[in-house]
């Protein structure tokens, strides 16, 4: 079980403090497929970055299979970080443009010093994952700018899976991809989820996709201890800057509904 308890995360900026997530709790059991939905700006990405140990929360706790996370970011142990992997929305912005696609896939192993030393072993490992995600070997020799968005996202999936995580978090993994590539990626994730009891958290705007693929769906607006947040009253808004700015904007616009309080 990967669980987040009462996570609060605040950003500074725009002349004030922005509470991105406020006492939010979420549990992802092993072998489950959970969907996380909610409008833009509701704090979904912040929450999962905390759950993936990339971002330290202001308060609250994250526990992975009973081990409480005490340090965050690079100070967190590799073993712990490998247990939770994250895939982002924009593959092109989440790979090193100087690495060939093959090196992108093996990067987490290289960075952790656990890359197999033999060349044959390395290429066999790479081949296994490339085949699994549907990449042909000629693509592994290319640079990210020489492959399509969908092909690169397949590589990002392989990169996440190569460290054999217990939990996989997909942050809008397919919103920029065509439906067939989306289906292909979800097929691979579904297979591995079944094989090794992988817990999968799928963040998506696509309610139809969440309904079709996930066993359980959580709306971030209902996970907060403070109840329905005022910011979520209208989804036609960017992340709330400060409550004051929101109210001022709302007062001027018919479509930005005034805060319910």
């Amino acid at each position, binding site marked *: 079980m990967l669980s987040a308890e009462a996570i609060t995360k605040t950003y500074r900026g725009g002349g004030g403090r922005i509470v991105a997530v406020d006492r939010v709790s979420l549990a992802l059991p092993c072998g489950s497929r959970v969907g996380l939905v909610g409008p833009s700006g509701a704090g979904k990405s912040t929450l999962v970055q905390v759950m993936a140990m990339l971002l330290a929360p202001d308060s609250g706790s994250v526990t992975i299979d009973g081990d409480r996370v005490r340090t965050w970011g690079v100070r967190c142990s590799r073993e712990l970080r490998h247990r939770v992997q994250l895939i982002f929305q924009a593959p092109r912005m989440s790979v090193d443009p100087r690495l060939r696609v093959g090196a992108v896939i093996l990067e987490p192993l290289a960075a952790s010093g656990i890359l197999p030393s033999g060349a044959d072993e390395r290429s066999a490992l790479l081949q296994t994952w490339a085949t699994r995600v549907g990449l042909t070997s000629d693509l592994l020799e290319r640079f990210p700018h020489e492959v399509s*968005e969908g092909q690169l996202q397949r590589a990002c999936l392989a990169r996440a899976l190569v460290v054999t995580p217990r939990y996989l978090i997909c942050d809008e993994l397919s919103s920029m991809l065509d439906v067939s590539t989306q289906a292909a990626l979800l097929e691979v994730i579904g297979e591995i989820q079944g094989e090794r009891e992988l817990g999968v958290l799928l963040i998506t705007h*696509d*309610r139809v996709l969440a*309904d079709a693929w996930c066993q359980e769906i959580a709306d971030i607006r209902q996970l907060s201890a403070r109840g329905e947040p005022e910011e979520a009253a209208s989804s036609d808004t*960017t992340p709330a800057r400060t409550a004051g700015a929101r109210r001022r904007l709302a007062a001027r616009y018919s479509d930005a509904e005034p805060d319910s309080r």
Partner: protein
Amino acid sequence: MTGLLEVEDLSVGFRTERGVVQALSEANLTVAAGDLLLVVGESGSGKTVLAHSLLSLLPRNVNVTGYVRLRGQDLLGLSPRELRHVRSRRMALIPQSPASSLNPVRKLGGQLLEAARARGLSEPAARARLAELLCELGLDFEFVGGRYIHQLSGGMQQRIVNAMALVGEPDVVIADEPTSGLDTALVDTTAAQLLSISARGAALLVITHDLRLAERLGGRLALLYASRIVEIGPTKLFFKAPSHPYGRELLRALPEREGKSIPGLSPELTALPGHCAFADRCPDSFDRCVESLPDLYPVRDGVAARCFVHAER
């Protein structure tokens, strides 16, 4: 029906180190005033290149053959001066991401006025026109004019670029991936705005990979695969019963249908086969499919599909 915009045998290739990337092959399209045409395909299928070639926005390492005519005038051989006129007053592009298409360090008022002035309006006329347009879109010119783009919500940003595109009363409006990265509520708003643009009488071309948006918008749909139009016809018929196997498999991949992916990858644009580009992934392919290239064959009710299954009719 006379075409307002006619695309004839349009091919676009990029010269690169890896050889020529054939991004668009022999595209033929006719769009009449008030038409709504959706250009649908996965990334790399040629849809954005099609949009950009209509406006001569392609980079220099490009080979373009064929014709693009707007009310009979060929657009591909225009001088920069003539092009500026076409782009500002006759054909407008609604760019893919509003926030990154506007200057982040200038207030919106100046940018909106600049766009309106470029379309030949005097300063007072430009102000009046913008105020009217923005009002129709539910925004106040004085208010948004004093802000920067990041101070507006995604929906408002979208309306700003819509207003910029509409201010010159263009004959053709091209919207490039209008919903990528937007949440469901914003997709609804954007779809409604696109339909209102179409209702104003301009021909509207929507480039998208979002099949649900396409289904909602209606009109006609051209499906691209590996640089070619493989199916074209009324959007409603496409969603009911696609005529090309690629269209059929693509719809099956929708999560609300079967969520089943199409095996394999689309072919490399540097090495497109001389036969049907979908043959390798097609469950119904037969000998002929890997021998020669199918034409767009008429199927029924204005539908045409590039598949030998329809060749005998």
